[in-house]
């Protein structure tokens, strides 16, 4: 080996070491810039009164009797249990002043509120500093529509999540239902009796829907619109057309298909494709099966139980008589056992149509063949 043959290897070694060194330098520089940025920020935040410590807050607010009276004559408690807050989802992340930014001076700036509700509706705005996305979703919700219509008691963040003992609601289906029940008590009572609600209550079944499964979470829409009605079919189908999930409970997963194949379902299907919003008179799942009080189909109280079906049909078909309900095949595909007439009619055409058409085409072909030979 000569020196001249060896130098490219040396060159590579230097190149490698050089680039590593450059990389290290770059990383150090970036770190330096970043820390430089932080240090320039630090005086700014130090100037702000954000440094007010929890201890300072709690020197007043740990008194269980601390309260404030409002012009409306209402008195609201100013007590906050630090232990409860520390157990909350924010407990290890936030301090008082992180949310209550405007109260970092003592005495606190005066409030421009009349009632306790005014106060809560003013304070909940604090959440959006971090949870802006969910905050904007609530602006699209029907709860906000109710607010816009002048009802101050429609829920805001803190009504569902509480102010200080915030827990992750999504972790507990039971807790979700309970949260909604604070206002929607009658519906909750129906729900806990239902096949879904009772499974949630008794066994904490994670498969059953809770309020938010069907109604959504922050951008909850009105359930009395044509759009909700039409979308409800697919909403139920999300679980009820899932073979995996339905097999678990021995329920047919064919319910959506059989519905859509029938007169009612086809109509719904076309309504879904229509651009103008018309009120679909055609029945959707919950018209027959019930809404919050939905039961097992073999429950004696089920509106779709054979004995109870006629009154259910009569809600739309007022002049229906005893034979009428069996016009609906109860989500069954026609078979020899179930709906044999329908089955055989279907089979008849399945055979007749091809035979007829092949026969006619053969006749045409023979005719053409003869004409061709004559030529």
């Amino acid at each position, binding site marked *: 080996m000569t020196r001249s043959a060896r130098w490219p290897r040396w060159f590579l070694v230097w190149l490698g070491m050089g680039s590593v060194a450059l990389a290290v330098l770059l990383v150090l520089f970036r770190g330096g810039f970043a820390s430089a940025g932080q240090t320039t920020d630090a005086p700014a935040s130090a100037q702000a009164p954000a440094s007010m410590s929890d201890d300072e807050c709690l020197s007043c607010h740990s008194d269980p009797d601390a309260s404030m009276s409002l012009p409306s004559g209402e008195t609201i408690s100013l007590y906050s249990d630090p232990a409860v807050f520390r157990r909350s989802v924010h407990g290890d992340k936030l301090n008082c002043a992180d949310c209550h930014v405007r109260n970092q001076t003592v005495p606190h700036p005066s409030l421009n509120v009349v009632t306790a509700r005014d106060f809560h509706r003013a304070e909940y705005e604090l959440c959006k500093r971090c949870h802006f996305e969910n905050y904007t979703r609530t602006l699209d919700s029907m709860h906000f529509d109710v607010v816009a219509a002048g009802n101050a008691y429609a829920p805001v963040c803190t009504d569902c999540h509480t102010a200080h003992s915030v827990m992750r609601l999504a972790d507990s289906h039971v807790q979700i239902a309970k949260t909604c029940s604070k206002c929607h008590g009658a519906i909750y009572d129906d729900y806990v009796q239902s096949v879904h609600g009772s499974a949630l209550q008794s066994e904490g079944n994670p498969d059953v829907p809770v309020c938010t499964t069907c109604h959504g979470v922050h951008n909850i829409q009105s359930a009395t619109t044509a759009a909700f009605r039409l979308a409800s079919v697919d909403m139920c189908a999300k679980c009820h057309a899932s073979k995996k999930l339905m097999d678990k409970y021995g329920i047919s997963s064919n319910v959506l298909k059989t519905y859509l194949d029938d007169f009612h379902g086809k109509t719904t299907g076309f309504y879904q494709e229509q651009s103008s919003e018309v009120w679909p008179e055609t029945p959707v799942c919950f018209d027959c099966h019930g809404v919050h009080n939905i039961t097992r189909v073999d429950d004696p109280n089920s509106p779709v139980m054979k004995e109870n079906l006629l009154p259910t049909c009569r809600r739309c078909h007022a002049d229906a008589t005893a034979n009428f309900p069996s016009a609906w095949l109860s989500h069954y595909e026609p078979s020899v056992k179930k709906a044999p007439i329908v089955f055989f009619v279907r089979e008849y055409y399945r055979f007749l149509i091809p035979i007829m058409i092949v026969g006619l085409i053969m*006749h045409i072909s023979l005719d053409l063949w003869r004409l061709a030979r004559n030529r």
Partner: protein
Amino acid sequence: MAEIATRSRSRRAALVQREFVRFSVSQRLEHLMTMVCFAALLATGLPQKFSDASVSIWLVNSLGGIDNVRFIHRIFATVFIFSAFYHVGAIGLSITRGKFNPSMAPSLRDFVDALVMLRYSVGLSNSKPRFGRYDYRQKFEYWGIVYGGIIMIVTGLTLWFPTYVTRILPGEVVPAAKEMHTGEALLALLVIVTWHMYSVILSPSHFPGDWSIFTGKISHEKIKEEHPLEYVALVGGALEELEEAPDQVQTPTAVAASAGDGEPERAAESTGDEPSKG
């Protein structure tokens, strides 16, 4: 046409040059009505059968939604039902007036004709069956429409008024009626598209179309070729004369066409292609 049949043999030569009246105004209107109803019912019915197809959704939305589509479907269904009653009524009236000609009645001869036609088509025989006013294929189509029409009307009314039907019949007849309505409709569509379109438009014997049902007229070449028995009945004379008849009445084109193989049937057939009617 009855009056034509009574004409004397001496006027035959003049008569055969003319076109024959095949369908009355009433019959032509009936066909037109059936045609319009058929098209409209298919246009509003098939999208319901094939509801997943994007063209169905487009059509339904273009017509202003499924409720409109069903409304239109029922309007044309009503028109169709009335035209069916009109047809039966017209037959009844012609029977009471003693003018009824049971030319559509199926007979044993039709089955024989079908077999003879089959032998001719496959080349076992060189003579075509001689047909009367309606050949077996036309009778098959007519009775197919009668049978299919009854099914469509009965099952359609069942679907339209399910609560009335189930007062007497079991509920299962309603989905069975739906299955039958949709099956028969598809069958009718396919038969019309393949068979009727071939018979009256695409067949080389008729291309670009046999318009008798619209004009009401049929040329003498055509009636002699396709309905020789009716021709004989109309103009009088014996069936055997038909063999020579083409020479007497053929137009120059027909003569030219037949010069090649000298087969009278063939020759007449080619003249039949000519759209001789206005």
